[in-house]
């Protein structure tokens, strides 16, 4: 992976394509929470656990949510369009650059509640199986033929006259999206974040991984996503229990706690809209089975501040690689419905607090009134390490969100070290337990 023009390798395809969200099926833990208590860990591990995490910019931050675009040169927000062109001009330093936010341009942020049916932006149209991924152009500078492989790149330089051009025309091969979110995090920043992330996980890491660790080989990739707005209603029904009494019966060793509860039939209904839900639109990246790949790492660094995405212009991809979309809207619909149901279940949770013994949902229904699909390229810094093993081994990713800097990764572990650590802690605890037993007898 020394050639920065080569996209990181894709993980091997599963024997059976995974439909829907795959695993991990569990709701992820809250950021900063862990099942491990650092206070009970050996000194060296505690130091790793307590080291600071790479800082991520909160995309919920007001300046990004509002979509305020700043001048990349001076940071001023006093920006005016230059009439008649796609250029923007900073009124403070006169710096000029491209960028039309699709959010306002196409009204992608408006009217989610009124959406009906399926609205697709032109870049999200179905992929034509016959459309070629290799596209050739006649160079506008000198007339030579130049070929662009849209599987991994969207710009090319003419070998004769050095003229650079990109694929801007929307062809039905899925390679050209509606919008692109340019990189904000620089490469040296991404390298520093990856280094900081791995420094917190070195003690038990695979030796070969540590020896070959060169975060400078990180590659900037534009990954294809569908950004979905939706408007849906969901209903759930189940059983809830409220504790009415708690008491103990029996004596001595046969003492047992019993509970009395009132059983209720619980029904909930919620109407809601979602704004900018990102779904992987590459079938390989959308397979989140943690047993065969580490794509869940890239999934974790979502979301992006997609409100700031700009109209597609291949120039933004100059110097970066890209992966092509290969999934159509209909194929992504089961995953969307699954996520909408999960969101609905999260929304109704607050209304079931009175059920002190919890709720068991038994049936759920979803009615999607309207959806809007926009195809987008989102920026990710990707570092990959291939761990050899059975079935072609496992590709470990460390990913940095190209906008917020959120960092997540999979660091391969040295099994014997991990086992030894676990056994040592277990032995100490066992010794304490035996000491207590001996002391009591």
């Amino acid at each position, binding site marked *: 992976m020394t050639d920065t023009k080569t996209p990181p390798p894709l993980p091997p395809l599963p024997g059976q394509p995974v439909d829907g969200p795959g695993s991990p*099926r569990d709701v992820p833990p809250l950021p900063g929470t862990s099942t491990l208590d650092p206070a009970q860990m050996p000194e060296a591990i505690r130091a790793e656990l307590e080291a600071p995490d790479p800082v991520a910019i909160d995309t919920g931050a007001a300046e990004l949510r509002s979509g305020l675009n700043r001048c990349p040169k001076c940071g001023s927000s006093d920006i005016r369009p230059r009439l008649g062109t796609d250029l923007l001009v900073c009124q403070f330093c006169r710096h000029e650059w491209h960028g039309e936010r699709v959010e306002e341009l196409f009204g992608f942020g408006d009217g989610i509640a009124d959406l009906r049916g399926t609205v697709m932006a032109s870049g999200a149209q179905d992929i034509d199986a016959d459309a070629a991924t290799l596209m050739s152009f006649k160079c506008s500078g000198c007339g030579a033929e130049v070929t662009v492989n849209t599987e991994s790149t969207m710009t090319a330089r003419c070998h004769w006259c050095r003229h650079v051009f990109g694929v801007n025309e929307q062809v039905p091969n899925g390679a050209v999206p509606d919008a692109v979110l340019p990189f904000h995090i620089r490469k040296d920043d991404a390298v520093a974040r990856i280094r900081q992330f791995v420094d917190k996980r070195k003690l*038990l890491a695979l030796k070969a991984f540590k020896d070959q660790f060169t975060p400078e080989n990180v590659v900037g990739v534009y990954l294809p996503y569908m950004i979905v707005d939706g408007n849906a209603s969901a209903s759930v029904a189940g059983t809830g229990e409220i504790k009415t009494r708690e008491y103990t019966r029996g004596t001595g060793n046969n003492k047992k706690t019993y509970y009395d509860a009132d059983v209720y039939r619980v029904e*909930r209904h919620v109407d809601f809209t979602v704004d900018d839900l990102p779904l992987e639109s590459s079938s390989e990246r959308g397979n989140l089975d943690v047993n065969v790949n580490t794509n869940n790492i890239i999934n*974790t660094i979502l979301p992006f501040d997609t409100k700031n995405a700009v109209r597609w212009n291949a120039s933004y991809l100059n110097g970066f690689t890209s992966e092509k979309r290969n999934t159509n809207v209909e194929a992504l619909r089961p995953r969307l419905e699954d996520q909408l149901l999960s969101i609905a279940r999260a929304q109704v949770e607050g209304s079931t607090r009175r059920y002190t013994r919890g709720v068991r949902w038994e049936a759920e229904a979803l009615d999607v009134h309207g959806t809007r699909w926009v195809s987008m390229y989102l920026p990710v810094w990707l570092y990959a390490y291939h761990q050899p093993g059975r079935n072609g081994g496992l590709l470990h990713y460390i990913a940095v969100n190209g906008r917020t800097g959120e960092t997540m990764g999979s660091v391969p572990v040295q099994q014997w070290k*991990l086992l030894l650590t676990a056994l040592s802690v277990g032995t100490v605890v066992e010794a304490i337990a035996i000491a207590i037993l001996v002391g009591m007898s």
Partner: protein
Amino acid sequence: MSDESGLWLLLAGPASATAVYWGLYRYYRNTDKSHGFERETAVEAQPVTGDDAKIGTNNGTTQSRIRGENGGAYRQRVQRVQRSSDTPPDVESGEA
């Protein structure tokens, strides 16, 4: 303390070893992480509506929580019912 509860204490060693193994494994490999779309997506919801009807009692149980509790497991799918949105799905009410 009885012999029985004393033997139970001996499980503390293997249990903590397992917990440390899985805790550290997840800390390195992050297999439990994914996009928390339930809380990280901009969702605008109308007020939740619904019905609650008492259907019976579950007295004298030794379980401290309802059997099969899934109120917090948003991603665990249950039976999908195709119904229009204005009526909640039917469930057979069963004793917990």
